[in-house]
């Protein structure tokens, strides 16, 4: 500003002020590339021969000024602190995996590859593996996703397309609130209410579909309507439905967000061409939201795989592969950990750590895939 004279034009003085500010601001180069571009443009306009009053040397070649970064001490400290915070979080997150691996190593070395194929859990005699619990976890998650997908899809479509405009924000808040209900409450509901009421449906399914191996129930005769319903309690089916109700709100809220971003122009175009509301949804909203639906389903799957307490409260654990969805007795990795950590010897603890590590890796893969799909469908910036 010292070089500005009273006779120079207003815009040149402005340019100087801007430049001065940028010179003094040490952070402009790294934080806002847009501002840097603007400043370069201003520099070139300021040194054109028309406004020679500003420049020191009018014959100098027209080059963009170099903006060097001199940071104030406070900024150096600040950047160091937040960088340290980021590194700290990264270290914690990487520790989760590495520590589990470290602790699980003895068990993994003892069991070798048979860890994945053995169906028993007797770590102290060296006979243990997660084949049974993997199948149980996968079946529970499968039932949960099959329950939650239509429910979440319907609710999301209702909120984004059918609900009256006044109700919409209230419904959104309600669904978000439901996502925060503790899982132990869902478990209570499953044990004390659902279990007693859903066995009739289980029985009906078993009777109708007894030719399908997945729905067969040992000990229940399809031709005898008076069989005891106790073989139908504590099954994969009931645990899966409870977990499905638990993951429905989070899936709904992701799908709803994606559906609401479907472009208004295309929607109105479809309606103006005479389509019905369902025609518009099928032609515009659903194709636009495919990524969101897939991503939400996978995120729900990740949650369902890791759910512990509700599953633990409902199932009665067995350690053989239980393909029969409707039959009493199943198991899951997280329920196994919650069940056995108390009486575990060091070897048993190592085996549980190995199971936890496996669960961790599976959910990590599912989540990575899900967030990649959702991110692509949302076009970046506003995730």
């Amino acid at each position, binding site marked *: 500003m010292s070089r500005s004279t009273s006779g120079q034009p207003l815009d040149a003085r402005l340019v100087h002020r801007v430049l001065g500010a940028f010179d003094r601001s040490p952070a402009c180069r790294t934080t806002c590339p847009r*501002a840097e571009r603007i400043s370069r443009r201003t520099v070139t306009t300021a040194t054109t021969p028309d406004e020679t009053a500003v420049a020191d040397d009018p014959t100098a070649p027209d080059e963009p000024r170099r903006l060097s970064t001199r940071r104030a001490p406070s900024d150096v400290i600040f950047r160091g602190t937040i960088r340290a915070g980021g590194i700290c979080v990264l270290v914690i997150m990487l520790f989760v995996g590495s520590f589990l691996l470290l602790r699980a190593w003895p068990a993994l070395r003892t069991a070798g590859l048979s860890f994945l194929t053995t169906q028993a859990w007797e770590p102290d005699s060296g006979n243990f593996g997660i084949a049974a619990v993997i199948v149980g976890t996968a079946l529970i998650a499968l039932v949960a996703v099959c329950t939650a997908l239509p429910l979440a899809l319907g609710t999301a479509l209702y909120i984004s397309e059918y609900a009256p405009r006044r109700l919409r924000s209230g419904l959104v808040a309600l669904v978000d609130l439901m996502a925060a209900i503790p899982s*132990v409450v869902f478990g209570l509901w499953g044990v004390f209410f659902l279990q007693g009421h859903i066995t009739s449906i289980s029985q009906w399914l078993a009777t109708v579909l007894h030719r399908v191996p997945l729905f067969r129930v040992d000990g229940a005769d399809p031709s005898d309507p008076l069989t005891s319903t106790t073989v139908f309690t504590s099954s994969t089916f009931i645990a899966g439905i409870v977990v499905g109700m638990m993951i429905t709100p989070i899936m709904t809220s992701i799908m709803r967000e994606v559906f609401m971003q479907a472009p208004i122009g295309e929607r109105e175009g479809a309606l103006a061409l005479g389509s019905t509301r369902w025609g518009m949804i099928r032609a515009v909203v659903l194709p636009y939201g495919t990524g969101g639906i897939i991503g939400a389903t996978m995120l729900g799957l990740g949650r369902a795989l890791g759910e512990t*307490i509700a599953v633990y409260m409902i199932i009665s654990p067995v350690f053989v592969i239980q393909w029969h969805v409707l039959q009493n007795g199943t198991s899951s990795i997280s329920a196994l950990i919650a069940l056995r950590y108390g009486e575990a010897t060091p070897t048993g603890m190592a085996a549980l750590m190995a199971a936890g590590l496996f669960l961790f890796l599976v959910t990590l893969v599912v989540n990575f895939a899900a967030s990649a799909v959702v991110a692509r469908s949302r076009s970046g910036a506003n995730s």
Partner: protein
Amino acid sequence: MTTTLPPAPTAPAAPRTVTPAPEARPSGPERRRELSGTRITDALALVGSGVAAIALTALLASQLAPIQGVPACVAIATVLFVLLYGTLVSLDEDAPAVRDRLVMVTVHGLAFVVLATLAFIVVFTLARGASALPHLNFYREDMSLAGPLDPLTTGGIVHAIAGTLIQITIALAITIPLGVSTAVFLTEIPGRFSRFVRTVVEAMTALPSIVAGLFIYATAILTLGLDKSGFAASLAISVMMLPIMIRSSDVVLRLVPHTLKEASIGLGAGQWKTVWNVVLPTSRSGLTTAIILATARGIGETSPVLLTSGFTASLNLDPLHGPMVSLPLAIFQFVKSPEPTMIARGFGTAAVLMLLVVVLFVIARIVGGQTPATKERRRVRRERLVRSVRARTAAAGSNLTRLVPSRRQEKS
């Protein structure tokens, strides 16, 4: 077919087209055509097929087939309703309209099922816990002197409430500085490293909570030799809450307008001053919401606490030594017992926990709903109020001052 022409002054002598006679138009103001809204036939079709479905189900269940239980009846009635409604609509409408109606009915039904089930879960918990909730000792005593057979008038959950509050306070003391500074790092220092951190954090958002508990068990308890204690539990909760908080804070911080940041930098402020004076104040309500939502998740998790805090029936206010129980863990232990009083206590505790979550959520909505515009409106209203009060007091004061000096004069 007749074509209407505007009445022209120079009409040909023998017009082939005829303008409608003025009396053909209905007299009076023109009625507005209804563009939306339900027709009476739609409503009748819905009601009719609903009644028919219920009646058919009743007939089936009572006379024709051995159908037991409410859920089976509801399922059959729903299927019948959809079939009947489709048939009824197809009498009047073409195929696309029928499909539209069927989808509409299905979507409404699914949404109703979800919302009704979730509401029912809340109501069910409150109803089953209702016998435990009215006793004041439920909030004042712990369970150390209450056996499993004792009535609801002895024993309570104050130990669990205190434990939850202590654990979540410690967890927040760890996660708020670490989480918010990491979120600031992700937005303020972009680059390859921060992109990597963001990816890792996003993948960790759905870290199974039992794995968080297992991790703290492996590190803090087995390796570092800590007790099973409230502190270990809050560490586990922190590991679980941290990614959730970072992710949502990151989203909020990225919404701060670039123009504001650029203006601040353009005025000569450094990065630290910009963050402290512009970025954080602008996103304060969003950050608060992020923190409160993460807190709500952290309060309700059972499995990390199950592995790390141990269980006790008595009040323990020391987070570093001895087991400390929290609300979800207390619920879990209560309902393990077959005694009806213990189960009622479990449901009562669940009601308290849900109330806590709902209160946190409502606070989050109120804080998060504050935009600068509403704040400005409220400030203007407050100022107007203050000014009017001041004007009134000034008016009253001028009366007073007229009185007070005279009193003073009397005193002196």
